[in-house]
């Protein structure tokens, strides 16, 4: 089986190297480990748990984000690093900036309601969102970064929804206020994030829910307000 791997040394794509391995029905991570330990020790990538839970080994195969430990390699596959983050080397990108959006979006619980017993139903509201492994696949595939590199982005907004929707959160309003700029209204709802999430989370759906909560709490879509400046809602000019 032959695969091609893009090789980078600090942002510069130097070449794509082809490797041949005598393995079949194995994960991409197993192939990378085989190459690293037996053929080419200079190949760089990140990995950890091997079981799709630590989020370290996200990369792109044939233009699609995958976890290397959960993807079965096919002959002829082309492997690249994730997009929207600076490439440090080969398949390794710098995730610091992406991680920082969690703090910028204030993706945490502000204060807790005392004496509240969470019901089974309440708990399942954000159960899926809290399955996020921060692999960054959604961040890599998001097209908004091409035009706005300050966009809080899919995983950080999913995380905000996880806390906003939590019945235990005492101050959901302040969380909603935080995500009005470079946040919920900047998403194009293209749904790419949903398609690549290894955990089956739809950030797009979470962003839509956050938009509804925003409207309900007095915020409005700024682009809507701008584009219809000087016109009433039905499109007729206002004088």
């Amino acid at each position: 089986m032959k695969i091609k791997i893009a090789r980078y040394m600090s942002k510069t794509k130097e070449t794509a190297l082809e490797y041949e391995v005598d393995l079949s029905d194995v994960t991409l991570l197993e192939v990378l480990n085989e190459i690293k330990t037996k053929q080419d020790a200079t190949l760089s990538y990140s990995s950890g748990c091997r079981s799709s839970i630590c989020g370290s080994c996200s990369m792109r195969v044939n233009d699609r984000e995958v976890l290397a430990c959960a993807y079965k390699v096919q002959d002829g596959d082309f492997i690249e690093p994730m997009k929207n983050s600076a490439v440090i080397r080969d398949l390794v990108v710098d995730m610091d900036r992406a991680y920082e959006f969690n703090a910028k979006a204030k993706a945490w619980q502000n204060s807790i309601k005392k004496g509240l017993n969470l019901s089974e139903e309440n708990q399942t509201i954000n159960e899926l969102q809290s399955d996020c492994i921060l692999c960054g696949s959604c961040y890599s595939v998001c097209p908004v970064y091409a035009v706005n590199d300050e966009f809080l982005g899919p995983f950080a907004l999913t995380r905000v929804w996880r806390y906003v929707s939590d019945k235990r959160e005492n101050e959901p309003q302040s969380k909603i206020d935080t995500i009005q700029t470079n946040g919920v209204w900047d998403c194009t709802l293209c749904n790419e994030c949903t398609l690549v999430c290894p955990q089956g989370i739809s950030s797009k759906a979470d962003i839509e829910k956050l938009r509804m909560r925003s409207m309900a709490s007095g915020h409005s879509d700024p682009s809507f307000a701008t584009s219809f400046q000087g016109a009433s809602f039905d499109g007729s000019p206002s004088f």
Partner: protein
Amino acid sequence: MRSDVLIIGAGGAGLVAAINAHSQGAKVRVITKEYPTRSQTCMAQGGINAALGNASEDSVEAHIQNTLKSAHGIANEEAVRLLCQRAPEAVEWLDSIGVCFSRTKDAKIAQRTLGGASAPRACYAKDYTGLKILHTLYDRCNALGIEILSERYLLNLVTQKSISSDVYIGGATFLNIRSGEVETYEAASVIVATGGYSRVYDSHSTNSTSSTGDGLATAIRAGARLSDMEFIQFHPTALKNSSILISESARGAGGYLLNSKGERFTNELAPRDEVARAINEEIQKGEDVFLDIRHLGEEFIDRELPQERKLAKLYENVDPVYELVPIKPVAHYTMGGIEVDENSSTKIKGLFAVGECANHKIHGANRLGGNSLLELVVFGGQVGINAAKYAKTFDKVIDASEQTQRDKNFVAEVKESTNQIDFYEKRTLIGNIFYNNVGISRDEMGLKEALDAIYKIQKELPFMGVKDRSKTYNTNLVEFIEFVNMLELCENVLVCAISRCESRGAHYRSDIPKQNDIAYKAHTITYREDGVLCVNFVE
């Protein structure tokens, strides 16, 4: 660059310590070789123990007695009592910061039974308990503005002798993996929270490839002591081909273990050492062993064990809803660790340790499922507060230049190595030797053979090194230094295992199958004196 408290490792233990040290007003810095959500803690699935009695009657005393029984006589009862007594408030705290625990119909935290527990005691979040706890802790650190530096690999601890010849800590040196530079971070107190050393078993471990025991190896090099290194827990149910963990919750929910004839052969909910040995005996007889959860039904499996189904399909090509899952026991948790006292302090002043890399003497010879997540919350809280308090009293001058220079020289030398012997081959070799000779069942001859092999490989070290000479993100270099650390720990494990001439918990000697309380109801302690590894037994 100096902080009050430096925490090495950003797993559950490190982050709980950071939150608590911060609560004392200390300037806290956390440094990790990965990112803060990628540690071994995210792989903990089964749950966190607390005698809440939400599913059926339970008591703190029952939790204490179960833990002591599983520890086979060498746990510190006082530490176990503290652990179990604080468990309900530990879970309450996690719940208060937003951990999404699964709930019962009457709005209580759901609990399930893990092996060795007399009641359903493990609070869980589907089979993502560790993941959800870890990520919530990370979010809390963000909320508090705690500094976390990623992708920096611990090289050595910086110690200094005071006028009264006490050894005290002054910080640590790291390899910045991205830049390739050696960096020094000074601090008044240091908490080592770097996780366990199960990867000495290489591919025969459920653990992340990062569980290489770096903190333990650097601690013993710096003059701290390690204890109980021979006690290594084998998890009964890892996937046969890949060693990937199938959570104990599968058996907790009623899963069976079957041999090739389709017969059950053990109590699936006995403590892990007993179940692992029973499986090992079947395998020795030539049987294959399977986990059977088919009778639990698709709906239950998808709701409670979704990870297990996904991993069995991916790595074994079997769907546990319809098929048997081939399994084997592999190295999972290391009970041994940096010796700490009741305050989580080591022998070095200002150096603390917590989590799997530390030995608080609560697991003894065999850890109960659900107690490791509990340990990191209870002792993580304690160590954070103690390290912050110590830092307030710290008034010494630190000179880290000598250690920094030594580490720079070391990195430079490794890059110039002749590299005649491939360390990856040796890493695999050691993993195989350890699995066969230092596994579930051991004997003197096998252990001594393994020690000979380790000494031989230690002698070959100067002929090993890296093939990748570049500075930027050199994982070949990081993996080599991890290998050097693991070699150190292998020697420690073996001298302890050879010295303990009895069977106790996870340390089962087929040549001496009885427990000997007169001679060995004690902790093994290892330390280096003038470069020589010494071993003692201390009660």
